[in-house]
Every structure is written in structure tokens, then in C-alpha cells.
């Protein structure tokens, strides 16, 4: 009897340092099916697939291919077993042509037989409905063409098991349809496909079965035909955990930021933020939820003047409420925003690569935003020195001295330094991106308390987060982004985890206006 399963992964465990990325995970892929691997960020989807494609080696557990137990110690082993993975970030050489990229790394002489490669590539394309020009240089290709090339490359190498890591993240809806069409063709040809995704509508549209992971653990799988978006969301986000984060009622919230028609395109012309309309109130914490890469970074950076926006976008800052004077932030850079007296504090996601200068001391980092003040051409070190001492004392930063480079501090202490500096500027708007990522419980609560204190002071706080439990217990309102669009604003006190999860993954047709 022919083996039913192309892949079986049993009790797979992988730890990185202290973090269990995968804990006794179970996965099976039948021959000739499309399986969705569904989960939030950090649920261990990509880690699991990296073990199947030979990039990581599991600490525990067994992998069976066609019913035979195998050891996959390198990508080369995976390739010999007919496993091919298309990564989220393409692994192509820009200056080479499609055919050269396909040939690259394969055994053979120094000379590429372009004709033979071209013939075989065309054969694959005709069979599944791809279109690839073998002689086109990669740098001339669109994102979708590059992805097609990556898929053709794995097929060319004889892959029978394909892993696609969030393939639709970079595609337009039309391109996604095309991709799904060729995926179906490949399935009908007997290939087995795993697609990593967190978009529910795509899970339902393309896959035969779905396996759900949450926080590194296997939750379950089900036939797509029997699944609906609600049930899958529940599996994905799990039950609510009570955290006991303090949350006061906002006192006289006043509109401080009016975000209108905010649209951002990246360097490749892909829309990252699509016509967002949102109000931010003083004296409240506005949570921003969403799968990562849905426009959170662009939203904050556009407000901070770090992101070029499409014309028609507007962010109005009203220091004294909705009827007071307004300052247009779009079109200004961080310096001119600061010079206009807008006290905009920003704790970016990339702490050491953007918020701080890693090799500089605490004192040097305190100066980053205020070194310009005063007419003297010399920098004033006295004030930043006092400020560093104060922050170390008040936030209990563990550091040998205030003259230690911040890169030598632990992650939590780095974050305290960064948040401390931003709060020390007595902001009127405070934006934080993943403020507690990687921090231990105590430090996380320190940060929550600091944010609450700012809220009481009448600061408009924006909290971009990934842990739904925290968002639901810290924030007054939660704006949910989905694929760059604002997919609803929920009340933090009444919304359920499932509701937020649903808005994160399934785009609503009627686009709600915020704060209305």
C-alpha cells in the first residue's frame, strides 16, 4: 500500500537559549494536498518549516518522509529528499538572470548550458501555468516575478514537497489569485504543498487542511471544508489570560492627532498603509493590533516624519483639543516637527538600531534628541549626565555606570533607557512599538505602569503590541490593522480576544471610520 503521508513530523522540539520555539509539535502532510500552517507571530511556524528544509536541526523528535525516518542536517539533505522551501525573503542573486539563478549551486561544470536550462524552465512553466523569462535579470523583476522564479527554482531541482513561507504577503490580490491557480495545478500534479500564512480568508480559499500552532505548541488540525474563520481564530489566539494590568478611565479625552487618508508606499511601490483614518486622544492609550508587517511600523514612522507618504495624506496635531490650532505633521522631518514645539516621543521597534546609538554611553544616548538645543556649538553634557543618573535611579536600570555603552546592557535595561529618555521629554504624544518584546514580566509591568502614568498626565499614548491579552487589558481603544488597512476600532474594555483576532485576519468589507 502506498504511503499516505508525504511528511510526518512527530514531537518536534527546538529551543533557542531559554525560548522554546517549538514544543512537541506534530505535523502531517498528505500526498497531493495543500496544507495551511496557521499561527500568530512567534508561534513557531517558520522555525518548524526551517527544520523540515534543513536550516535548523531539531533538538528532539522525528521526521518521516514517505514513511521513512530521515535525518535532515542541511538544506542539501532536504533537497535530496525532494523538499523545497520558498522563503519570505527571496534568496536570489540580483545581477544574474533567471536561468543563472536556477542553475546556481547545482552540480555541474563552470559552463551553463543556457539552452537546456531554458528548455526545462519553459517545460515547468507550461505545465503549471507560470510565466518566467529565463533571460531576464532578477533586478528587472517585480516582487511577484521573483517569487515565481523561486518556486520554479525549487521545482527545477525536483522538489515534490513545497514549503511557501507567507507567499502572499508581498502580492497584490490579482497576483495572489494567480499564485493560487498554479498551486492548485501543482497539487493536481501530485505535489504536496505547505503554505505558511496568518490570513484566514486565504486558508479557507486555498488549502485542503489546516494545522494551527500557538506559542510554539501544536493546537490541532482540521479539514478546511469543516472549518470557519471563527473556529480557526479561537484556535489561533486561545483563551484570555488575566494579567491584572491597571487601567483607569480616561479623564476628559481630547482629540490630539487626526490621521486622515494616510497612505504609505514602500520603495518598490507596494502599498504598506492604505488610506488610514484614525483619531488619537489625549489621556488614553490607543492600542494598535495586527499581524506584524501590516502597516504598524509605517503608521508610527509616518507620524514621526520618518516615512514618505502619498499625497493627500494628513496627520494633524492639535495640542489644545479639537477646536484649537493644528499643526500638519505630514511632509515634515523629525527635526522640524520638534522645532515646531510638537513634543512627539517615539519608542521604535528597533531599539538599538534606531532608538539608541548602540556603542554610545547612556549619557551620549540621552543627548540624542536634545543635543541641538542652545546656541553654543559645543554640546552640553551636564544635563544629559543628570538625566541618565535620574533614569538609572528611578527605573532601576542595571548598569555598571552611566558611562557604559548601551549595547552592553540587557534587553530590558536597554528598553528602560529608551523609554526613560522619551518620557523625560514630557511628551504630548507617546508612540511605542512592541515596547515589552523580549522583556521579563517585571520589566513589562514597569513599562505598563510608565505608560499608565503618561496617560494620567494627559499624554496621547499609542501602544503597538502583539500580545492580545496585554492589548485588551491595557488599552482604552484598540485599532486593528490588517494588510495595511484599518480594519475596525474596538473598545478595549468590551472587546474579546476572538473579536480582535478576527479583525486581524479577516478584512471587513465596510471600512469603519475611527473615533466617529
Amino acid at each position: 500500500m502506498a504511503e499516505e503521508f508525504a511528511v510526518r513530523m512527530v514531537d518536534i522540539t527546538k529551543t533557542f537559549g531559554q525560548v522554546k520555539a517549538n514544543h512537541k509539535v506534530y505535523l502531517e502532510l498528505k500526498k497531493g494536498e495543500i496544507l495551511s500552517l496557521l499561527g500568530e507571530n512567534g508561534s513557531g511556524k517558520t522555525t518548524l518549516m526551517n527544520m523540515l528544509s534543513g536550516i535548523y536541526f531539531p533538538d528532539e523528535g522525528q521526521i518521516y518522509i514517505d514513511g521513512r525516518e530521515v535525518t535532515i542536517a542541511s538544506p542539501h539533505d532536504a533537497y535530496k529528499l525532494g523538499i523545497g522551501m520558498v522563503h519570505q525573503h527571496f534568496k536570489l542573486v540580483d545581477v544574474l538572470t533567471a536561468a543563472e539563478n536556477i542553475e546556481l549551486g547545482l552540480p555541474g561544470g563552470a559552463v551553463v548550458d543556457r539552452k537546456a536550462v531554458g528548455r526545462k524552465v519553459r517545460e515547468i512553466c507550461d505545465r503549471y501555468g507560470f510565466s518566467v523569462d529565463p533571460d531576464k535579470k532578477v533586478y528587472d523583476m517585480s516582487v511577484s516575478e521573483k517569487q515565481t522564479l523561486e518556486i520554479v527554482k525549487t521545482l527545477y531541482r525536483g522538489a515534490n514537497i513545497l514549503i511557501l513561507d507567507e507567499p502572499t504577503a508581498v502580492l497584490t490580490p490579482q497576483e495572489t489569485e494567480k499564485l493560487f491557480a498554479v498551486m492548485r495545478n501543482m497539487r493536481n500534479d501530485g505535489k504536496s504543498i505547505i503554505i505558511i500564512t496568518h490570513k484566514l480568508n486565504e486558508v479557507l480559499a486555498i488549502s485542503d487542511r489546516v494545522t494551527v500552532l500557538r506559542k510554539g505548541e501544536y493546537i490541532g488540525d482540521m479539514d478546511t471544508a469543516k472549518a470557519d474563520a471563527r473556529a480557526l481564530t479561537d484556535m489561533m489566539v486561545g483563551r484570555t489570560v488575566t494579567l491584572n494590568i491597571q487601567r483607569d478611565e480616561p479623564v476628559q479625552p481630547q482629540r490630539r492627532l487626526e490621521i486622515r487618508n494616510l497612505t504609505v508606499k514602500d520603495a518598490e511601490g507596494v502599498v504598506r498603509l492604505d488610506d488610514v483614518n484614525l483619531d488619537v486622544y489625549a489621556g488614553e492609550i490607543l492600542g494598535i493590533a495586527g499581524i506584524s508587517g501590516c502597516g504598524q511600523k509605517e503608521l508610527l514612522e509616518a507620524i514621526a516624519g520618518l516615512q514618505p507618504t502619498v499625497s493627500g495624506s494628513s496627520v494633524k496635531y492639535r495640542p489644545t483639543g479639537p477646536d484649537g490650532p493644528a499643526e500638519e505633521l505630514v511632509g515634515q522631518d523629525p527635526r522640524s516637527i520638534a522645532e515646531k514645539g510638537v513634543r512627539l516621543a517615539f519608542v521604535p521597534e528597533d531599539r538599538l538600531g534606531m532608538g539608541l546609538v548602540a556603542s554610545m554611553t547612556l549619557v551620549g544616548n540621552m543627548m540624542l534628541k536634545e543635543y541641538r538645543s542652545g546656541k553654543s556649538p559645543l554640546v552640553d553634557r551636564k544635563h544629559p549626565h543628570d538625566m541618565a543618573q535620574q533614569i538609572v535611579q528611578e527605573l532601576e536600570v542595571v548598569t555598571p555606570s552611566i558611562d557604559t555603552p548601551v549595547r552592553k546592557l540587557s534587553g530590558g535595561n536597554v528598553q528602560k533607557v529608551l523609554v526613560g529618555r522619551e518620557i523625560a521629554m514630557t511628551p504630548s504624544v507617546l508612540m511605542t512599538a512592541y515596547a515589552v518584546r523580549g522583556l521579563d514580566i517585571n520589566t513589562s509591568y514597569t513599562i505598563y505602569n510608565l505608560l499608565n502614568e503618561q496617560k494620567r498626565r494627559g499624554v496621547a499614548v499609542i501602544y503597538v503590541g502583539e500580545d492580545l491579552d496585554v492589548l485588551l487589558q491595557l488599552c482604552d481603544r484598540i485599532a486593528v490593522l490588517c494588510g495595511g488597512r484599518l480594519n475596525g476600532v474596538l473598545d478595549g474594555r468590551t472587546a474579546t480576544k476572538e473579536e480582535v483576532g478576527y479583525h486581524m485576519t479577516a478584512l471587513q468589507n465596510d471600512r469603519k471610520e475611527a473615533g466617529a
Partner: protein
Amino acid sequence: MNNHEPLIHIAKRDGMVWWRAWLVRLAAAIAALLVCALFIYGLTKLNPVKVYAAMWQGAFGSARRSWITVRDATILLCIGVGLAPAFMMRFWNVGAEGQVLMGGCATAAVLIYAGRALSTPMLLLIGGAASIAAGVLWGVIPAIFKARWNTNETLFTLMMNYIAIQITCFLVAKWENPKGSNSVGIINQQTQAGWFPAIFGQQYMMNVIIVLALTVGMYLYLKYTKHGYEISVVGESENTARYAGISVKRVIIRTMALSGAVCGLSGFVAVAGASHTISTSTAGGRGFTAIIVAWMAKFNTFVMILIAFLLVFLEKGAIQIASQFKLNDYASEVVTGIILFFLLGSEFFIQYTVHFRSHGHKKEVQA
């Protein structure tokens, strides 16, 4: 699973107190001298102590030799000081050679064309300004391309060197004196117009004063001014710089203008203060040697004084032992090479520790 501990394990240090770091460097210097001694004795049967004494003689054997060493070290130092701000910004300016030559050409032009018309102070003022302008031009062109189109500054500044060398060749042919000599000769030899005047009776005192002033000034600029702070931030992370509201483009262009200006001024010192002529050897590779000076000193301009002197000392010493003991030029270069190898290599032991695999317990090898 593979649990083999590798034979050698290299780990980054948390940092070393300054006096221990200097002890390591001193140890490296002594080790270098010992290895050189073995090399010298093994190959030539000469007494190494005598050879070292000859090296010292070559660099500091007489007042005149000492002043020549000082003269050459100050020019090397000046170029290193010019490179410091660019390197601190992580802008790989390998174009000092060209910037020095352009500064030298501008100075020579002033001395040649205005030598009869103007007094020496005026000539020096205008020559200095012209050399700065030429250096700025050579520094700013690659900076603009880097800032606007993100071109690779290493290639760009390097190629600017070749343009400068060709321009210098052209000017040498144009100013040839006497005809057919294929050199410019000593400019204003009779009148000494536009030469650095002697101060306290010392011909090269003015070089020392100018370069030391630049050294101190650059140290203060980089360490205490807002511009210096901006340079550090841009060098570390352009993203952070943008976040802090620093205009990265402006800082790149401004800093390269400064870097080019000081390098151009080095050309002025080299022409008006030292050789009183212009040729492609006015820079003579010092634009590249200065990169070593800047890096070994970690952009601290005071440490650069030490390094510049060391390098010039080695060069003079090598020439001396080559002629005194009738050694091949290469032999003395090997000596220089060994010393530099040890000194640069010692930095590795300051940054890292090396653990060897051992049974049961780990042995730590401290340099």
C-alpha cells in the same frame, strides 16, 4: 549530537583597562624587536643591537635628522587628522592621496604665479586658502554622490586619486623648470617667496605649530561639538540619525568638506613648508599610510602623534640600516613589516581572549 569543543575558542572581551592595553602593546613591541633580532642575526650575522642603534641614528642621529623626521611625521599626522572625521562617520575616504596632491598643486600655483607680486605672508595666506579649496572640492564631490545616489565612496575617492595624479603630471610638465628636467624644481629658490619662515631659527617649526593646532582642534571638534556628536551618530547608524532629526546628507557633505580641507592643507604644508616643489611624490603614498595612522589611533588625534612618529621612525631607520650595512632595501622593509605586524596584531588580544580546549577545566590565555 556534535559536542566537540573546538581546539581554539575566541571570545570578545568586555573591555580592558587602558593601562593593561598599553602593557599588551609594549609587550608586542618587545616581542617584535626580539623576532627582528633573530631575523637579522639569522640572515646577516649582524649584531641586532648595532642594527637597532643604527635605526635610531637614522631617525634621530643629528639635529638635522631629527628635524627631517619631525617634518615628515607632521605631514603624515596632518593627513591622519584629516581622515579622522571621515572615518569616524564610517565614510571610507581613501582619497587623501588625491586631496593632498590637489592642495599641493593649488599651493604651487600660487607660489609660481604670484611669487613676484606678493609678500610671503600674503602668499601663505592665499596658498593656504587655495589648498583648502582644492581639498574641499576633492572631498565633497564623492560625498555629494554618496549622499544623493548612495555611490560607493571607497571606489569613488580612490578614483579621484588617479585624476589628481594625472592633473599633477600635467602641471609638472607645464611648470617644468629647467626645461627638459621633467620636474618643477625648487620654486622661488632665490627669493624664498611663499616659503614657511623659520621660527626660533627652526626651519620646520611652523609646520609643527600648524599641525599641532589642527590636531588639538580636531580632537576638540570631534569630542565636544554638536557637529562631532552628529558625526558619531551617523557613523554608528543612519537610521538612528534620521530618528534623531539629523540630516544625514548634510552631515556627510559637511564632514567630507572638512576632511578634504585638512588633507588639502597637508598638501600646503608639504609644498610651502617642506619640499618647495610639486610632483606626484608630494603625496608619495602618505595618503594611504595615513589610513593606518588614523585606524591604529582609533581616530584619537593625540594617539595619532605617536603612531605617525613611529611609522616615520621605522621608515628612516630602515633607510639608514640599508645604507650603513649595505643591506638590501627589502631586508629593512621586512624589519618594518615585522614590527607593524606585531603592533597591529596586539590589538586582537586587546579585543579578544583566546581559550584553548583542555580536559576538565578551561585554561585562559591572556596576551
